[in-house]
């Protein structure tokens, strides 16, 4: 979105949802991960997102803010790959979004941690200036920011926009 607004392709974006990280562990939590700091233990095989993608950037921010240094066994390009490696039991823990664990239909367990509120990713929305149908686009933006869509998003685990 930053690139789009920088190139003056959109109006002022508005955040419609937020998301934060949660620790995904295989069913039964075999490595007994209880906290964010546990991820730094050498015995815990942790998979994270690469710093180049948003979930990885949030992970890096949390590491810097808390002073916990995770030595991941893998840095995945997609958050779904992190989830996949936890689900298959290859990894003991993975840092994914709250919504990913909610959407995993119980195939992984989640471990929440209080530090997660310190790196919140926001999702902005905005109508493109060159939109072929700006009225419809504006209507969609209004829908996403409206109470119906907000309750759907909230049910899927997304946080309220700030």
């Amino acid at each position, binding site marked *: 979105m930053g690139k789009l607004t920088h190139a003056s392709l959109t109006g002022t974006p508005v955040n419609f949802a937020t998301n934060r990280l949660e620790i995904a562990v295989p069913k039964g939590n075999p490595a007994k991960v209880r906290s964010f700091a546990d991820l730094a233990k050498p015995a815990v*095989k942790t*998979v994270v997102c*690469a710093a*180049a*993608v948003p979930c990885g950037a949030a992970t890096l921010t949390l590491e810097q803010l808390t002073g916990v240094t995770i030595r*991941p*066994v*893998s*840095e*995945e*390009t997609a958050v779904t*790959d992190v989830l996949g*490696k936890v689900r*298959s*039991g*290859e*990894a003991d823990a993975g840092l994914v979004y709250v919504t990913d664990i909610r959407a995993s239909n119980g195939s992984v367990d989640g471990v929440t941690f209080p530090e997660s509120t310190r790196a919140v990713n926001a999702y902005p929305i905005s109508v493109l200036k060159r939109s072929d149908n700006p009225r419809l686009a504006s209507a969609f933006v209004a829908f996403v920011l409206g109470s119906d869509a907000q309750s759907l998003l909230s049910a899927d685990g997304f946080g309220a926009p700030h």
Partner: protein
Amino acid sequence: MTRLRATSGPVPRWVIAVAIVGGVFVLLPLAAMATRVNWGQFGALVSSPSSVAALLLSLRTSLAATALCFVLGVPMAVVVGRTRFAGQRILRSLVLLPLVLPPVVGGIALLYTFGRQGLLGSTLSILGVDIAFSTTAVVLAQTFVALPFLVLSLEGALRTAGTRYEEVAATLGARPTTVLWRVTLPLVLPAVLSGAVLSFARALGEFGATLTFAGSLQGVTRTLPLEIYLQRETDPDAAVALALVLVAVAVVVIGIAQRVADPLSLRRQGSL
């Protein structure tokens, strides 16, 4: 203008025309990519620590995979190409399966075999071998997809070479192992070499199975294709520059393959 010269019989003009279209189809996308390279930054982009680590890892693992393909693939080709047994055709098709499988499927299959929760995973971890997320996993993934190239190329050569020399050697009292080393393999050496180079090239380009099975960590499992995929997220210039490096390496490899295969095979054909 140089005229196309047919080496054996005339080639219809329309065949040449279609062949040119095919050639353009292959080369045009590569040329289009080359036009997007930020040449001013090229040196800096391809010499960043992560790029160099990815290139070195790719070369190292592809060499190891090629060695493994050679060790496993030569006996496989000899068995498939030189023996007759029930179900041989089916076995031959199964061996070539990784050629047609999407690499991601190969990665999933490897995961269920060598992964921590896999078929052999618990046995391996008792032995203290942990393959998941290691460079070994990368080599296994590359070997899985590259092996059919060596088997296919060698098996074809074994079939066309015939068994006359082997039969003579056997009547002269040579044991089967001696015949294999001294007669069979020297006869099909060009095919062994070109098969090995093709395997190397396939291993170098391996992406899907590695991503699924090995993970992605700089210097350990993040090979050049995985680095390109990651860079694409933030730095398209770096991704294109690295892609060009990969193309260059592939061109060199294919060049070597043709050089080792052609003169030797021509000489052999001439002597037969």
